[in-house]
């Protein structure tokens, strides 16, 4: 291994470390924002830490637990060290620790979001490349119009449209929930039942994200297609498909990966509108339920969880960057 390469590697390792430290700092800042929101909100902070259903005795307990009579810095310390131990508070509404309430909803959201993000990423990238390669053709215009409409319509309206047409009018799919409540299903029958319920929410989310990813991919591809190395690849006599998907797309994907990563982190907090429209029992639905029930511990716990997932996913996105772009490296094998 050459000295130059080793130096490069050490430097990249430090970069990786720096990004990790930055991410942790951001999480800390977000926790502090959470704390400040509770204290800046009008009224008694104990009320927000307890949730609406707390009685006077419970409020006293909360005041003692979070040392609300102490200076703000002491309170912040108690609040943060509680979180570090995994204590995100207790939900009176659900009679459970907040973290437990949140984790119960994770599988439903993961199923919905992972399916939709995979479908929309693959379809969005392929359609984006095909549109860019035939810029201004009829196909490009059709794809573009679809993307513009999908990007502009509110997600809940897309959901409502699918719901009214395919569930209420045609009766092809169930309209609400994740499984049929009136029958005890097990095994394959249960799986099929869930898939049936999954169809419309996934379709809605896929349409919304497909439009975004498609637009991004198309723009990024158009930018890249004029570059010299694409012309070189073509001049070498490479097959057009390999030029597009092998050479051009690899560079065009960079901005796309950033955005998909960011959106994915956000979606891990639940697809609020889609879950609301289809009564899908995920994190987004939990968010709205905790809002209506004024279950502040769950609400604030969710806000922090979502923020942390955004930070973590962004960190992973940065690492993906290094795999895609040979010029960026975070301590990988070669620089």
């Amino acid at each position, binding site marked *: 291994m050459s000295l130059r390469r080793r130096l490069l590697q050490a430097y990249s390792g430090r970069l990786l470390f720096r990004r990790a430290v930055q991410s942790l700092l951001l999480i800390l800042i977000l926790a502090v924002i959470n704390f400040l*929101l509770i204290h800046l909100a009008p009224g008694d902070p104990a009320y927000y830490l307890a949730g609406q259903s707390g009685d006077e005795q419970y409020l006293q307990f909360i005041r003692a637990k979070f040392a609300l009579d102490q200076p703000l810095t002491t309170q912040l310390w108690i609040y943060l060290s509680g979180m570090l131990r995994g204590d995100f508070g207790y939900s009176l509404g659900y009679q459970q620790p907040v973290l437990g309430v949140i984790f119960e909803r994770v599988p439903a959201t993961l199923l919905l979001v992972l399916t939709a993000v995979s479908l929309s990423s693959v379809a969005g990238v392929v359609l984006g490349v095909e549109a860019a390669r035939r810029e201004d053709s009829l196909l490009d215009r059709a794809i573009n119009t679809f993307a513009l409409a999908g990007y502009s319509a509110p997600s809940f309206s897309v959901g409502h449209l699918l719901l009214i047409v395919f569930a209420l009018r045609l009766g092809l799919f169930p309209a609400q929930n994740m499984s049929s409540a009136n029958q005890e299903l097990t095994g394959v029958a249960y799986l099929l039942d869930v898939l049936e319920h999954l169809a419309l929410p996934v379709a809605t989310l896929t349409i919304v*994200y497909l439009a975004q990813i498609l637009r991004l991919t198309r723009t990024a591809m158009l930018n890249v297609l004029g570059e010299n190395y694409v012309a070189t690849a073509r001049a070498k006599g490479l097959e057009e498909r390999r030029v597009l998907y092998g050479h051009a797309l690899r560079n065009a994907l960079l901005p796309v990966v950033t955005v998909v990563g960011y959106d994915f982190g956000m979606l891990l*907090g639940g697809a609020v509108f889609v879950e609301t429209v289809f009564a899908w029992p995920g994190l987004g639905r939990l968010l709205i339920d905790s809002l209506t029930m004024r279950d502040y511990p769950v609400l604030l716990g969710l806000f922090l969880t979502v923020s942390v997932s955004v930070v973590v996913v962004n960190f992973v996105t940065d690492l993906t960057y290094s795999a895609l772009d040979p010029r960026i490296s975070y301590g990988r094998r070669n620089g």
Partner: protein
Amino acid sequence: MSEAAEDGRAPTGRAALSAVGRNPVAACGVVVLAVYLFAAVFAGQLAPRDPQKTSRDSLRPPSAEHIFGTDDLGRDVFSGVVHGARVSLTMGVAVAVLSVLAGVLVGSAAGYAGGVVDDLLMRLTEVFIVPPRFFLALVVAALFGSNYFNLGLVLVVTYWPSTARLVRAEVLSLKERDYVEASRALGASRARILFREILPNASPVIVTNFVLMVGMVILVEAGLSFVGLGDSSRMSWGYMLHNGEQFMRDAWWTMLFPALAITFLVLALNAVGDALNRALDPKSRFTHLDKPA
């Protein structure tokens, strides 16, 4: 496609306008925007009824008397749609103006000064980018009350960083151009160079960012009202959808018209924004504003 002049200056306002005019979709967009603007300004005269006024004609389908039908409390849907334009446009434009102003200030200062100032300002920007905008808006609405002032403030706080990053990148590339160098050689002050040479040439990027942001803010505001966290003092499209959801099976008109109103307005804004984007250097940095789902 590029309208950029020989010396690398940005296309003039007239060039950008003519680019919009040549694009049929964008030209339609401008007309649609004009219609919405007209509706927003003259809502009081155009709407046949007070959008909040209830009547005994509940859930009536569209007819000559109520062209978009009525909702469960007998309120006229058409009047609601017309007045909703006022709420959506005011919110969208106000938030976008303030965010873009803040973003231009921070972004141009960071890009032009460079060094420590740049580093500090960009770290600050990063902190504001991380909290998921829509979630923060929900939490603030729940804790502080959902009035237009609070909602607008949260959105400004979370939207300015996207402009700041864009403007910084633009200033960084513009400050190396020959005409800026020439102006510097002639002894122009730093402020003069920034405000007379650099920012005017960055303006197409800023305007595009602004147009697209108005659309996204309108979607976010409608979304907050849809989940029941909007300001209920005025009739808004999001509220109409929130209220109409329970009658979706039978009274489609309570949902369809507000949904179309939002979609066409945002569509028009995005079409114009896209056309402006294309009129720029094709290698321009694109604005991407995430849409809540």
